[in-house]
C-alpha cells in the first residue's frame, strides 16, 4: 500500500429541512446546501400532500367537486369556494343575484383577514416573536366563530354555491360581524406595536428576499407577494368579480420588494378588507340569494321534500350533472395568497373534461431558491413566511 496523500478540503453541508419541520408551514421539504451559515443552494420538493384534486374533479359533477376546493387552501377555504363557483358560473353562463354577490364579497374578505392573521402569526413566530402568534390567534378564533355562525363550519365551509350562497345571513350575524370590524383595527395596532418598529424585526426583514418588480412578474408571483415589489396588480381591482366593483378599496403596494414591504402590504390589506366588510354590511341589498336558473342550480331543499318536479330535477342534476355548453374557460380570483385560477374544459357532459387549478402557493414555492441563495439559514425561514404558502393548495 503506497502512501495516500490526503488533501484537506471543505465542502457544503447538506441539510434536509422538512417535510416535518416546525417552520415549513406544512409539508414543504427543502434541501439546503449550506456553507457555514450561508445558503448555497435550495431545492424545494413538493407533493407530500398531493390528493389528486384536479383528477378527482374530472370524475365528479360540478356540484360535487365544490367541497374539494375547501381542502386546497384550508386556511381560507371560503375564497377557494368563491373562485370555484365564479369559474363554474361563468362556464354555465349564469350570474348570482346581487345579495349573494355582496355576501360572497363579505365572507371572502373575512377569509382574507383570517388567512392573513395566520400568516402574521406564523411569520412572526418563525422570526421569534411568539406573542404576536397568540394575539393573532385570538382574532382568528373570533372570525372562525363567525364562520360557524353563518354556516356551521369553521374551516371547510363550502358556503358559496354555484349560482349564489347556501343560506341567507341573519341580522344577528351581521351585527356581530360589524362589532368585529369596529374592534379589529385596534387589534392590528396591537400586532404592530410589537413588531412594526422593532429593531430586531426590521433587521430580520429589511433587505431580505429582495425581488424586483420585473423579476417578480417573470416568476409569476401574484397577490401581496407581487405587490410588495411595487406592482399594482389585484384581480379584485382589475377584473372585478362578485361585488368588488361596487365597494371602495385601495390596493396597497410596496417599494423595495423585500420581506418588510410584503409584511407592510399584508398589514395594510387587513385594513382594506375590514373596510370592504363594513361597506358590504352597509350596502347589503335585499333579494334572493340563489340565481333563478333551474337548469343549473339545485332547487331549494324544502321544495324537494314537497313536490315531485323539484325532486326529479335535483336527482338529475346530482347524478348526471347539468347540461353544460361545450368550451373552455379560465377564471381567476384574488385569494389571500395570490391569484387563484380555475381552468375548465367542458365536453358538454355534466362533468368537466379537464379541471386545472392555478395555485399561487405552487408558483410561490418555486421562487424560494431565488430568494434564499446567498442569505443565511435564518433568512430561509423568513422567506418561507413571506411568500405565504400553504401546502394543501400547492400540492392539491
Amino acid at each position, binding site marked *: 500500500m503506497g502512501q495516500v496523500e490526503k488533501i484537506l478540503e471543505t465542502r457544503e453541508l447538506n441539510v434536509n429541512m422538512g417535510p416535518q*419541520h416546525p417552520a415549513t408551514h406544512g409539508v414543504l421539504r427543502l434541501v439546503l446546501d449550506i456553507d457555514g451559515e450561508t445558503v448555497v443552494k435550495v431545492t424545494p420538493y413538493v407533493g407530500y400532500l398531493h390528493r389528486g384534486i384536479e383528477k378527482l374533479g374530472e370524475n365528479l359533477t360540478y356540484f360535487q367537486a365544490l367541497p374539494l376546493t375547501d381542502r386546497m387552501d384550508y386556511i381560507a377555504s371560503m375564497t377557494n369556494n368563491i373562485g370555484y363557483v365564479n369559474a363554474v358560473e361563468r362556464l354555465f353562463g349564469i350570474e348570482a343575484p346581487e345579495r349573494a354577490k355582496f355576501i360572497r364579497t363579505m365572507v371572502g374578505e373575512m377569509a382574507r383577514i383570517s388567512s392573513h392573521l395566520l400568516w402574521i402569526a406564523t411569520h412572526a413566530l418563525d422570526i421569534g416573536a411568539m406573542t404576536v402568534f397568540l394575539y393573532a390567534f385570538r382574532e382568528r378564533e373570533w372570525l372562525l366563530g363567525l364562520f360557524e355562525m353563518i354556516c356551521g363550519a369553521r374551516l371547510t365551509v363550502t358556503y358559496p354555491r354555484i349560482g349564489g350562497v347556501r343560506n341567507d345571513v341573519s341580522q344577528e350575524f351581521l351585527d356581530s360581524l360589524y362589532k368585529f370590524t369596529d374592534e379589529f383595527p385596534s387589534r392590528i395596532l396591537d400586532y404592530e406595536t410589537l413588531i412594526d418598529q422593532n429593531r430586531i424585526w426590521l433587521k430580520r426583514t429589511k433587505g431580505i428576499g429582495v425581488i424586483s418588480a420585473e423579476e417578480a412578474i417573470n416568476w409569476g408571483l401574484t397577490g401581496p407577494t407581487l405587490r410588495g415589489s411595487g406592482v399594482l396588480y389585484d384581480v379584485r381591482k382589475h377584473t372585478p368579480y362578485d361585488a368588488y366593483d361596487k365597494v371602495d378599496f385601495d390596493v396597497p403596494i410596496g417599494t423595495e420588494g423585500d420581506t418588510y414591504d410584503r409584511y407592510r402590504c399584508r398589514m395594510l390589506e387587513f385594513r382594506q378588507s375590514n373596510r370592504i366588510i363594513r361597506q358590504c354590511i352597509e350596502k347589503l341589498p335585499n333579494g334572493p340569494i340563489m340565481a333563478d336558473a333551474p337548469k343549473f342550480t339545485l332547487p331549494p331543499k324544502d321544495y324537494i321534500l314537497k313536490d315531485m318536479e323539484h325532486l326529479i330535477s335535483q336527482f338529475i342534476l346530482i347524478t348526471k350533472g347539468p347540461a353544460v355548453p361545450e368550451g373552455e374557460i379560465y377564471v381567476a380570483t384574488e385569494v389571500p395568497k395570490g391569484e387563484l385560477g380555475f381552468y375548465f374544459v367542458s365536453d358538454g357532459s355534466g362533468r368537466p373534461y379537464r379541471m386545472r387549478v392555478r395555485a399561487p402557493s405552487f408558483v410561490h414555492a418555486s421562487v424560494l431558491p431565488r430568494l434564499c441563495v446567498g442569505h443565511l439559514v435564518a433568512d430561509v425561514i423568513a422567506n418561507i413566511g413571506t411568500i405565504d404558502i400553504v401546502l394543501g393548495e400547492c400540492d392539491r
Partner: protein
Amino acid sequence: MNITGQEVIDFLIKVGIIIIKIAVVLGIALLHVAYATYFERKVIGHMQVRLGPMRVGPHGLLQPIADGIKLFFKEDILPANADKPVFYLAPVIFMASAMVNLSVIPFTKNFVIANLNVGLLFIFAIAGLGVYGIFISGWASNSKYSFIGGLRSSAQVISYEVAMGLSLVGVMVMAGSLNLTDIVKAQRDSPWGMFIIPQIVGFIVFTIAAVAETNRAPFDLPEAESELVAGYFVEYSGFRFALFFLGEYTAMLIISSIAAVCFLGGWTIPWYITKALPFLSHVPGIVWFLLKVYLFIFLYYWLRATLPRYRYDQLMAIGWKILIPVALANIVVTGLVKILL
C-alpha cells in the same frame, strides 16, 4: 504532626456543616429551578392573553413536579450513530458545571458554601466548562441539526463570555476584590448602596451578555425552534433532555444571582432606603436576595415574550462590535475615576 482528638472532631464538624449546606442549597436550588419554569409559563401566559398551566393542582402549581416525573419515566433514546460515551457525558458536564457555581454564591450573610477569594473568576471558569457540554452534545449526536446548534452555541457563548467578563471588571475595580461576599460588603459601605448606579453601563452590557450567555430569547439561536428544531439537544430525550433543561435554568439562576450580588447589592439594601423606611432593616437578607434574583429572571421572561430573534451574524456583530468596546471603555473610565478620586 500532632493531631489531637479535638482537632479531628472540629474538622469533621466543619465537613458535616458543609455537606448540610450543600444539601440545603442543592435542594432549594433545584426546587427553584423547577418553579422557575412554572413562573415562566405563568408570566408569559398572562402576557399572551392566556392562562398558562392550570390543570395540575390549584392554578397548575404541581405542573413542574408532573413534568419532572414524566421526563424521568420517558424512554432514554440513543441514536444509532451517536458516539455513545460522549453522548452520555455531555448533559452531565452541562448540568454539573451549572450546579458547581452555586457553591460560591453568597445567598445571605454568612451563608455561602465556599467563600473563595476568587469567587467571580471561579464562576467564569466553571461557566466556560458548560460550553463543552453543549458542543459535545451537538457533536456526539451525529445529527446535522444538533451539530449546527452546537457550533452556533459554542461560538455565541465564547464571544459573549468575553463581554460579560469585561462588564464585571468595573465592579471588581470598585470593590477591590474578587470575593463575592466582599463585593456585597463594598456595596453596603459605598455611598450609592448598590453598584448599579455608578456601573450602569456595565450593568446594561452584563444584562445583554447574560441573556446571550444563557441562550435565551432574543439570542436563543442555538435552539432556534423554527430553524434548527431544537438545536444541540435535538436528539436527547427523557431524563438526559431534562438535564439540559435543568442546566439551562440553573444557569439562569446563577447569572441572576451574579447580577444581584455584583450590581444590586446582594442581600443588603442601600442605606438611604433603610434610613427612609427603618422597619425594612428587619427584613431578612435572603428575602432581598431572592427578590432581586426573581426581578432579573422576570426580565428574561419579559424579553422572551416581547422580542423576535436575532440572526446569527447580527448576534455576533452586537457582541464584538458593540458590547466589548463599550465594556472596555467602561473599564477605562472606572479605572480613571478610581485613580483620580
